[in-house]
């Protein structure tokens, strides 16, 4: 175990490096390279801005500086929480993002939890279903779920569950009610890879001798599943955390658009439609930070969850 702090430091360093490189790539691509392209909208004669006013705007966005100064000041800004200003509304990007973040965080969380629940249900039916055909159907559900266009699913759910069946009020819903359909929409494609990994690892775990021993000792049913099978099947599922995070971001962009929710996803779609590069840059960097943190946590927590990895790490 002596090498553990070294491992943590190395992993941390790698995470910071990737984040820094991602910031560099995104800011070069979205801010520095297009440079005056971002500013082009202000020289539109319809706006009636004078040359001095345009020069003032350019200066306020830093577009008059050489590229390395722009890069350095953008980097410094990001490190201090100053993300610049929206070229569309002129509002501080930090204000826009912090206003949109809570709603998306709640949606991502409920979507993720729903995906987990759905994945466990599918896994249970596929592994323990009473009939062969039932197990086969459940087994093929993930490949179906992964192929559903999310935007289409959202539209269908609103139309049929809300308007035709009237189960959920979408016109004037409560805060909880308004989350149900978007969460289900996000959850379906995300549950697919989780269920695939769970089904495979449950099958592997069930074939292990210790499960047979536990069963012989009298354990059965839910207890056996939770304590002997699920616990050991979870660690392979953690490896796809990064994939799941990416799917959550994509799901947020699509569902917030379809359901007309405010949040980071809707902000992203608006930024692209309005060519609002500073807003998109900030969202890219924050989402990448989220991805890097999730993967870092998984890598660091992995040995805690799966004791088998501790010895391997220590030996390495």
């Amino acid at each position, binding site marked *: 175990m002596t090498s553990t702090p070294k491992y943590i430091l190395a992993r941390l360093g790698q995470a910071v490096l990737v984040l820094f490189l991602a910031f560099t790539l995104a800011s070069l691509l979205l801010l520095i390279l297009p440079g005056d392209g971002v500013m082009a909208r202000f020289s539109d004669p319809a706006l009636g801005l004078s040359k001095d006013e345009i020069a003032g705007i350019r200066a306020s966005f830093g577009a008059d500086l050489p590229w390395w100064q722009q890069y350095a000041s953008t980097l410094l800004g990001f490190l201090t929480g100053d993300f610049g200003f929206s070229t569309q509304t002129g509002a501080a990007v930090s204000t826009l993002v912090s206003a949109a973040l809570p709603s998306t965080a709640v949606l991502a969380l409920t979507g993720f939890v729903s995906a987990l629940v759905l994945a466990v249900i599918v896994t249970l039916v596929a592994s323990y279903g009473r009939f062969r055909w039932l197990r086969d159907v459940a087994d093929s559900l993930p*490949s179906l779920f992964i*192929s559903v266009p999310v935007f*289409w699913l959202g*539209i269908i759910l609103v139309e049929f569950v809300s308007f035709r069946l009237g189960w959920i009020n979408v016109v004037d819903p409560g805060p909880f009610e308004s989350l149900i359909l978007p969460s289900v929409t996000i959850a379906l494609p995300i549950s697919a890879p989780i269920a695939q990994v769970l089904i495979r690892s449950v099958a592997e775990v069930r074939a292990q001798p210790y499960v047979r021993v536990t069963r012989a000792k009298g354990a059965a049913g839910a207890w056996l599943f939770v304590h002997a099978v699920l616990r050991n099947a979870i660690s392979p599922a953690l490896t796809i955390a990064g994939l799941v995070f*990416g799917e959550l971001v994509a799901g947020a962009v699509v569902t917030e658009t379809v359901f007309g929710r405010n949040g980071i996803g809707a902000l992203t779609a608006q930024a692209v439609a309005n*060519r609002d590069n500073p807003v998109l840059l900030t969202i*890219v960097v924050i*989402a990448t930070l989220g*991805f890097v943190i999730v993967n870092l946590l998984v890598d660091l927590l992995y040995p805690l969850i799966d004791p088998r990895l501790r010895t391997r790490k220590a030996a390495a």
Partner: protein
Amino acid sequence: MNTPLKNNKAQPRRTALRNSPWLKPLTLLAGLIVLIPVLWALFPGLFTGQDPLDGGSTASLLPPDAQHWFGTDQVGRDVYARMVYGAGRSLLAAIIAVAVGLVIGTAIGVIAGTQRGWIEDVLMRIVDVLVSIPGILLSLSVVIILGFGTVNVALAVGITAIAQFARLARAQTLGIVRSDYVAAAYGSGANHTKVLIHHVLPNASGPLLALAVLQLGSAILQISTLSFLGYGTPPPTPEWGLIISEGRNFVATAWWLTVLPGIIVMAVVVATNRLGSVLREVGE
């Protein structure tokens, strides 16, 4: 596709045929489902006599019937005809996207796997960066720079696929470069380029092609998503995501305009994924 042929030589022909995963009923069905939109794309005129762009005097929002299989949209255009004519653009975009990922990703992976040293480090860090930016944001960043349109959307989706191809190509290359036959090739006077062309690329191509087919399904989905969001071709040009997006405004009165095109997209993606997994299975 090579492996079943090899099997034929090794075993009696019948057993090999019966055991071939290509001949399972579900795989055949998947092949058929993929074949139909490919034929739509190549010969749209054979599958529908209707005009995808002009509804003429046809009534709008008609329900599906024998003449208009998927009904008609808000201006009386046949939605089945729009799906048939949209197949070309939507499938071509997916193929462009996968080709971008396959070619650039394979190049990065093979160079990293053969050159090693600092070149490998730099290339694989770039791949790490491409992996860590969530796919949709990476493709939207490309779209915001290049502008809207089907080809730009295809390039944007292709860039998100580079990382997976690069990692697979590098892993394959590392395995091949260490093998005895490559050592033998070098021993008998082959240079880097020869080894690359005669040994690395042919041996790595199987798994890479299987990944390419698997990526095709996800590319169709991503492209239809971006086209739904309005970043693809502007109307009235038919494109699968756009057709669903147009139908959406009438989902309350004419649900089939949204539901049926969505089922087509889903079926094609399921079928493509199925063929991709069979291809990967056969390779292993």
